């Protein structure tokens, strides 16, 4: 198992390298970080532009810049992924990209984790119920909801949910659902528990919106997996042994039907990350998603590259976790 983990980790190195090259080139050829500066009125002096160009390492050739971005060798100490530095921002030398990313990642991961957990839980539950009551009214209803969630674009769903929250608050005359921000604007004077409750309250609607894509896909997978298992010989044999129905369902059917979901879930993590960009915008969160939007708007090259790398790393890690989990769940998979 350990050998497998190490080998699996080694394999991620070339994957991440390729991802870094792609992220770098993609951003480098599509935007000029100095563009905003150039069109400022009144025009800044050539010295200022030159200094900015040097600060952002735009005076160096492409390959050198890539190497610099990756390793930080030959830079000013503010760049180099391997050193944990994301590079300078167009927002000025005082802006620490790393600290900003870290702060916002906390906010976003909170949202992602809540959405993934909720989506998984609901998907498994409805998938199982759907399969056990195949072709019943309940099954058709859940199927309809699933396809509705799949078919609706995330931003549209997000906007609808937000409007619904606003409407509900209006009708009730008090703020039940928080529709703006990841926490209240002013948290001074709140104790720890109050802060947690506040953050939790702000999570509700965005989580709901973000969860639906993952939920819709996963519940369909879970239904199919469960149906397959329910029709399997070993479930029949478990019944034939005289096990109570609930035990058969839990121990033999559900346990095995969960295995395929792990790999599907890992792949969908990427989609959920993409979803945060939209949901955070709709609900005006200061998370990674809005950071991306801001960075695109200002052609903040290193922030963009760093963001892409971070997302890539998260996806790779999610897949690694799924692979390892698979080995734990399915004894037929052994990593030697």
């Amino acid at each position, binding site marked *: 198992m350990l050998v497998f983990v190490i080998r699996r980790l080694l394999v991620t190195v070339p994957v991440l390298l390729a991802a870094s090259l792609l992220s770098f080139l993609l951003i480098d050829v599509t935007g000029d970080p100095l563009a905003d500066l150039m069109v400022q009125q009144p025009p800044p002096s050539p010295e200022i532009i030159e200094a900015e160009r040097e600060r952002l390492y735009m005076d160096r050739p492409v390959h050198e810049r890539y190497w610099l971005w990756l390793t930080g060798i030959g830079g000013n100490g503010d760049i180099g992924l391997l050193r944990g530095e994301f590079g300078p921002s167009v927002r000025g030398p005082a802006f620490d990209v790393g600290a900003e990313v870290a702060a916002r990642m906390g906010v976003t991961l909170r949202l992602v984790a809540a959405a993934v957990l909720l989506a998984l839980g609901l998907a498994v539950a409805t998938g199982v119920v759907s399969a056990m009551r195949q072709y019943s009214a309940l099954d058709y209803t859940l199927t309809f909801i699933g396809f509705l969630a799949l078919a609706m674009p995330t931003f549209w769903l997000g906007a609808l949910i937000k409007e619904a929250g606003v409407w509900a608050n209006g009708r009730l005359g008090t703020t039940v659902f928080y529709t703006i921000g990841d926490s209240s604007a002013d948290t001074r004077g709140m104790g720890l528990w109050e802060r947690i409750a506040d953050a939790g309250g702000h999570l509700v609607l965005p989580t709901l919106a973000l969860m639906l894509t993952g939920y819709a896909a996963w519940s369909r997978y879970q239904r199919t997996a469960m149906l397959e298992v329910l029709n399997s010989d*070993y479930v*029949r044999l478990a*019944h034939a*042994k005289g096990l109570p*129905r609930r035990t058969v369902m839990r121990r033999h059917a559900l346990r095995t039907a969960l295995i395929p979901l792990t790999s599907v879930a890992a792949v969908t993590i990427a989609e959920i990350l993409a979803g945060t960009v939209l949901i955070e915008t709709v609900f005006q969160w200061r998370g990674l998603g809005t950071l991306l939007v801001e960075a695109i708007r200002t052609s903040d090259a290193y922030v963009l590259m760093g963001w892409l790398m971070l997302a890539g790393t998260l996806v790779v890690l999610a897949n690694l976790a799924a692979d390892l989990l698979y080995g734990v769940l399915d004894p037929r998979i052994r990593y030697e």
Partner: protein
Amino acid sequence: MTAEEAVAGAVGQGGAVLRIEDLHVSFPTEDGRVRAVRGLSLELRPGEALGIVGESGSGKSVASLAVMGLLPRGAQVSGSARVAGREVLHLGDEELSRVRGERIAMVFQDPLTSLNPVYTVGRQIAEAVRAHRAVGEREALARAVELLAAVGIPRPEERVRSYPHELSGGMRQRVVIAIAMANEPDVIIADEPTTALDVTVQAQVLEALEAARRRTGAALVLITHDLGVVAGHVDRVAVMYAGRLVEQGPVEEVFERPRMPYTLGLLGSQPRLDEGRSVRLAPIAGAPPTLLAPPPGCPFAPRCPMAEARCTEEEPPLRATGDGHLAACHFAERLEGRTPQEVFVRSGEPGARHGAAPSPAPAPSAAPLLRAEGLVKHFPVRSKGVVRRRIGDVHAVCGVSLELREHETLALVGESGCGKSTTARLLLRLLVPDAGRVEFEGADIAALPRAELRRLRQDMQIVFQDPFASLDPRMTVAEIVAEPLRIHGLYRERGGAADVERLLRTVGLGPEHAARYPHEFSGGQRQRIGIARALALRPRTLILDEPVSALDVSIQAGVINLLEDLQEEFGLAYLFVSHDLSVVRHIADRVAVMYLGKVVETGAADRVFAAAAHPYTQTLVSAIPLPDPRKERRRQRILVRGDVPSPSAPPSGCRFRTRCPKFAAELSERERARCVEEEPPLEARVPGHLTACHYAQERALV
């Protein structure tokens, strides 16, 4: 309650541990209600073994699932089924779970899917024990070890911790049997328990079933399509057709004096190991009726050569025709003393093979059409991961040589994984051998230029095993049959549609079938389409890769007869790949027995079957059940131990030694050393009969 008490209790209620009365099962489908079981009544006495025989769709499995309460949601069940006096149909979940496993247990067909892959076999057996007994996990596991030993699994203490995928099919089926006997039930229902297994493993599993019966005193319901399996292992037999019981009686009585034409037909279409090529099989024409709207009269009437007007109007009741013998036929008495050939072979068609002795095999001096020498094929085994190093080889074929002459059938037999199908593919150059050569009419096919190899393919065609997978579902029958002609640019030249029609007629299909799609045909008809396609190019050799193993017995007989007729008519040479020795006995002139990639015995079929000299051939022959209860019970059995070793690490010396009964029981230490160290060469014992065994000794086993 112990098994004895249960039996005693059951006897008090009329002497039956299982009594099924007027059982009806139907399934709603889009086309209407499929009436799978129609008024089945059966009785099973304590400790008795009852065989239920029938072809696919006869309702035999559905009936057993109905008794177990395992039918899918939506199935409609009526009638009554009492287990030890207690009604089990329409029981609630909780009550049902108390009956299942405790009073009545079941063994399913496919051992590869019957066990949950994520739990150890020990846990799965222990679970069955704990479902009905208030014992701890530790105690239950100890019982699991005991049960594994009882079904003949070596080293049960270790095996109890194995996961199902670590065990072979035969072992897994024995684990399922262990689960079935865990609570000493009154009845064990085994639904085709050996159909998915090789013959030598089948023998082991049947042995385990017998052991389970002896230990638990349970009555056994053995459901199978194989008349041979029934003949040797049950006391009474019931024959099902189209959802109804059509004949029932003591096994000798039914086999020797069948009183229902269908039973007689089944017996006549079953190729037998104790009959040579001189007897032509008597297939049953047509196919079983659809169960959507069964005909009003006797369901067998449309296929029955004895049918009269009364048969299509009035359904015959099951009535007594002898001592304990029941049959559902208006004219049961007319079957007295008649053979299947007399009843089922239409007048004008000769009962014996073309009215004459089998066509003599060509003289050995005749130049072989197809010759293979020292064929070797290894498949690399690669490590998982990115690098995928080659970590070993599967030695699929290791030095196989064979010859095939015109108008001759050479059968390549052996268990799954012995390399017989790979050999067939090497001959066709669908696979390229690692070493060795294949000659067609003296020309090395590896040396042929591409265009000539293409030409040569016209002379060598193949018929595949699975008639469902080998026909493109999106092509019409005419397109399928014409495809080889089009590929070789011969379609117009050979007469186009007229030629296709001629081919269809040759294989017993009509021109009206040409425009239909494969899914509209039954398995037997599809295989005929496959044969028509193979014949389209007028080949001289046909490679037949298990061509009848997916078909029901009555259908299989028709295809075998067709193959024999085609050979007669066109002088075809057949390479017949099969695991079924009864079929091989019926169709082959010569036999080559393969084990782990090597030919271990070869010679004229008559000789190899009558006087098998290699211990492996002997175990194979002895494992094939005869559809004759008296003979079958008297036969000497040579049981082989264990499973086929992995072909990626074959044993040193003689490859069969690890399972060889002779090696285990008869040889001295010194003699054994030779088996371990020295690989026995394939040598002629008498001219034309070659054996690869240091201590070969002929034995008559049929």
